[in-house]
């Protein structure tokens, strides 16, 4: 499902899919934001501000809503 969204939003939103067990950037971000659950989706605007964080599995329609709201 995320693969499909990644293709659909190509050029509009950059998708970064990170495994905190293997990726230092992921574990660093999660520690900084006190994120402890997997999966977690974090939406970041162009200016670097966090628009939204979704904890746990999310439905496609909910992800679309957050993706469309990004600035």
């Amino acid at each position, binding site marked *: 499902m995320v693969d499909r969204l990644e293709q659909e939003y190509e050029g509009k939103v950059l998708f*970064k899919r990170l*495994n905190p067990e293997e990726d230092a950037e992921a574990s660093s971000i999660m520690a*900084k*934001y006190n994120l402890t659950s*997997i999966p*977690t*989706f974090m939406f970041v605007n*162009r200016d670097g501000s966090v*628009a939204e964080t979704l904890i746990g599995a999310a439905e496609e329609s909910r992800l679309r809503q957050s993706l469309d709201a990004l600035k």
Partner: protein
Amino acid sequence: MNSTTKIVVWAAVAVLAGIIAVLAMSPKGASVENVDAAGLAGLAGDGVRVIDVRTAGEFEAGHVPGAENVPLDQLANALAGWDTSQPLAVYCATGARSTEAVTTLTRQGFTKIYHFNAGMVAWDGEVERGAVAVAQAFKPTETPVMYEFFTEW
């Protein structure tokens, strides 16, 4: 009563109304304790997480050492995933925005909140300057970014 006095009186009424609203809406089990500057300094020294809900610009100009900047308008999103049992101390400039922050935190189930309700104007300790803003941990990019944190089960 001149216009300046009226503004001050109305501001005081607004802050009082906010405090009353926070007290009225605090869920059972939530503890909100007002602290003064010395109290906040002690909490920070004890390792309690201190949240500054002012804007990034205000934060950069000077903040309580060790405080994290989460502007009020970003608080609800930023605290998703925070441990609600972890004590937090919050402050702003004069107590108005931090009162709103306390409301947000109690609604989200945080159980121990310290409120430096007099705000930065009453802070008489050391001041740290510069941006250490949690909310600005990401660098600006050409396109928005969606991070998905996952693991292989």
